[in-house]
């Protein structure tokens, strides 16, 4: 009797594909954790690139500019044919830029022409909910797709955690139903246990990037902390970065 074949997607790292089920099972959502500087953003791009040409890839970013993402991907000779939704940029134009103007006006006063030429009918522009923005964008995707959300931290900083968890659940459900794959990044050791375990409970796979200070620099480890229904697949790898991207080494 042969095993029923699991449909998988390429995670972008051959060693990791092998260690899992030959890839990420379709329908799975991955949480990528780590501390700042551990290479989460690079992993996210490598993961995105692995889907290009086979899946519709959508990359949500909250911190980088579009050109920075594309330049980095080109440096590693990865394809870049994906959609970038720049939440960070939108946040800047819709919220931060306004706040900057407000502080300027509070200092200098509002220029007369702005006061004389506008009516109160235009006031009260609806606030953009970036969480809804993401789930809406995700809900419009047709399979097979691949979502990268870098990072969840932006949303945890701006919205109630229960709402972020609920949005994550929506993304996961949509990914699962459409036999696609999603990856979300989040800093470790920042949030309350309730939030941390809430996120960990929703996702199917948890990968963490760890750095340890050694005399001559850092030793970097990739830890597979959770694989749904397959506790035997968890494990620790060493990783390094070369001209092709992140590479893993098994620890004997």
């Amino acid at each position, binding site marked *: 009797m042969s095993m029923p074949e699991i449909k998988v997607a390429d995670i972008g790292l051959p060693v990791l594909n092998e260690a899992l089920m030959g890839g990420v099972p379709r329908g799975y959502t991955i949480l990528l954790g780590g501390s700042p500087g551990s290479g989460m953003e690079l992993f996210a791009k490598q993961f995105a690139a692995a889907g290009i040409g086979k899946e519709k890839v959508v990359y949500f970013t909250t911190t980088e500019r579009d050109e920075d993402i594309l330049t980095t991907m080109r440096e590693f000779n990865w394809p870049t044919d994906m959609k970038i939704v720049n939440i960070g940029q939108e946040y800047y134009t819709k919220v931060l830029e306004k706040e900057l103007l407000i502080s300027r006006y509070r200092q200098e*006063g509002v220029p*007369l022409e702005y006061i*004389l030429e*506008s*009516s*109160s009918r235009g*006031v*009260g522009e609806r606030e953009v909910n970036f969480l809804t923005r993401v789930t809406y964008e995700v809900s419009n995707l047709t399979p097979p797709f691949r979502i990268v959300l870098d990072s969840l931290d932006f949303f945890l900083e701006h919205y109630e955690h229960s709402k972020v968890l609920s949005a994550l659940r929506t993304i996961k459900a949509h990914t699962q139903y459409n036999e696609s794959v999603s990856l979300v990044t989040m800093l470790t050791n920042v949030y309350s246990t309730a939030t941390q375990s809430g996120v960990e409970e929703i996702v199917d796979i948890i990968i963490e990037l760890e750095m340890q200070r050694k005399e001559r620099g850092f030793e970097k480890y990739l830890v597979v902390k959770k694989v749904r229904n397959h506790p035997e697949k968890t494990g620790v790898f060493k990783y390094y970065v070369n001209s092709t991207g992140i590479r893993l080494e098994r620890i004997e």
Partner: protein
Amino acid sequence: MADTYSAREDRCVTGIEGLDNILNGGIPRGNTILVTGSCGTGKTTLSIEFLVHGALQGERSLYISVTEASDKLLKNMIPYEFFDPKLIEERKLIFIDLPVIYEKLGLQKLDFTLEEIQILVDQIVKVVVELNVKRLVIDSITSICYRLTTEEKIREFILRLGTELSDAGCTTLLVSELLPSAKGYSQYGVEEAIADGIIVLGNLERRGDLLRTLQVVKMRGTTHSRAKYVLDLTPIGVLLVPLLKGGSVEMR
């Protein structure tokens, strides 16, 4: 006729039939007057007429609307014979909406801090000075005070505003909405103590008719009649006639 008093530099001639007589020549320049009364007593109409007469005499007049969109108010002014749309075109008479300023200054919380009160006062004074406004109406001060949650803040706001507007040579009417249940002449009780003058508008029932009344309760810098007058809103503007007292029942 109002023109009799136009020679007096120290007086701001209201141009309202009867009122300048009551005030012995007009409102002393630079005064901040509370125009108070319950709804429908003619506060807004009286105030706008005060501005229109100013504009007709070449004094730049400014109306700051707090709750109503000013373009709607303007439409209501068209039937009045004293109103000339040219005044708007030539910017002799200017309407602005305070919510526009609130938005630009990020004053959207329901409770202003002392710092924000200062910012708001500075902004209003800046507009008055830059446009060389000689007559100002704020309709209504009650709606602003609603966001100044303590008596100290209301006192601070009206006192600062009154002083700086007076320094700018601007005569100001603060429209104050009075609930029938309110004691005294203003909703919060503080406004009346700080204002230089109080004009009370009210309702009076006489033999089945509801009359509008006007009474100048206080006016610094001039002698004035304290008698109650009947106020008639006619297509040619406000008319004041002495009240014949027989059979009257006062109402708020």
